[in-house]
């Protein structure tokens, strides 16, 4: 089974093709605001260099967020377009879970993606018998509140662009208890989305190109109003 996978949740445009447990190819470029121009040519070039035709693809997987609003829309629209051509199934995979999947170590893994205004998109994961398990599913949180919350863990692996941005703050608080992803693991990888996507597909958890929607994880208007009121009251 050939799987074509995309992740455009961050500045990284990444696409990959895997087949029956093998990685055929992965193509990633880290450029600002360029998904709309680069992504489809990247996929085209990867397919051509691998001699894979679009009709050979059996399954499409895509990172559905959270992440950059524009990036997520481009990723979802692109995968829907490809899946539509030969009416193939689509699997949406959490961007945060994808990042955690890059770090298969026996520790708590906490991906951090910059959500701006001192917030991060995050989640809490661990590994049990070769399986990534979520302790807390993706959520958006103020970085200081999140770090406070993580105090109960003896050691933590951080990854994602937020781990870079807040590295000093994290090190100050956790010292040797904190470990950080290396370059090969800290970015979104389409191959991780593909592998997680296949697992979901085998569990019957897939969608068609109509029903797939991104997961932006932003605050609802009600939540924002509540926060604004709290600010006004000086809390």
């Amino acid at each position: 089974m050939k799987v074509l996978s995309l992740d455009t949740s961050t500045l990284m445009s990444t696409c990959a093709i895997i087949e029956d447990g093998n990685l055929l190819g992965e193509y990633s470029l880290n450029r600002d605001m360029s998904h709309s121009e680069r992504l489809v040519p990247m996929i085209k070039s990867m397919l051509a260099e691998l001699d894979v035709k679009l009709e050979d693809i059996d399954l499409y997987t895509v990172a559905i967020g959270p992440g950059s609003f524009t990036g997520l829309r481009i990723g979802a629209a692109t995968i829907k377009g490809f899946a539509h051509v030969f009416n193939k199934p689509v699997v949406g995979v959490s961007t945060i879970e994808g990042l955690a999947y890059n770090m298969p170590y026996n520790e708590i893994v906490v991906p951090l993606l910059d959500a701006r205004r001192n917030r991060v998109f995050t989640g809490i994961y661990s590994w049990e018998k070769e399986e990534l398990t979520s302790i807390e599913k993706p959520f958006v949180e103020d970085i200081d509140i999140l770090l406070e919350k993580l105090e109960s863990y003896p050691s933590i692996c951080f990854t994602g662009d937020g781990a870079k941005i807040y590295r000093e703050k994290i090190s100050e608080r956790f010292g040797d208890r904190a470990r950080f992803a290396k370059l090969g693991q800290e970015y979104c990888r389409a191959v991780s989305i593909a592998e997680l996507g296949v697992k979901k597909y085998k569990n019957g958890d897939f969608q068609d190109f109509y029903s797939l929607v991104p997961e932006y994880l932003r605050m609802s208007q009600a939540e924002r109003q509540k926060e604004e009121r709290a600010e006004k009251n000086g809390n």
Partner: protein
Amino acid sequence: MGDDLIIKIDGLEETKKFGIKIGSLLSPKDILCLNGELGAGKTTMTKSIGLGLGVDDYITSPTFALINEYEGKYPVYHFDVYRLEAVDDLFDLGFDDYFFGNGVCIIEWAEKIEKLLPEERVIINISKGQKENERIVEIDGFGKSYERIVKELK
């Protein structure tokens, strides 16, 4: 916010000069807010700022498109948020990707969305003076770019 700087501008030629000067002082990640009532000259000012940023394209009001993108020395994103009805509209347009991106953002009617803007920004309030083509320009803001601009204009 910092100490306001108030400048009186007389006529279109001076507006153009002032805009070009401001444009030449902006750099990537800067956010420039333009406030002032209808007809105060926000779009006219933006055109001159665009010249200072090396934008060759003809800059038009993005009142209906909400965002226009230009290529100058840096990417230039020109917003007009007058028509926005709810803050949610902003999220639905992915504004954060621009506000925290690597271009220069020029935002007309920025006061309407103040809460969502990054703290570091330059604010220009334009109001009509006593003479027909006279404009009072008040510069306020916070951060390095604001300080740089005030220093250059003083």
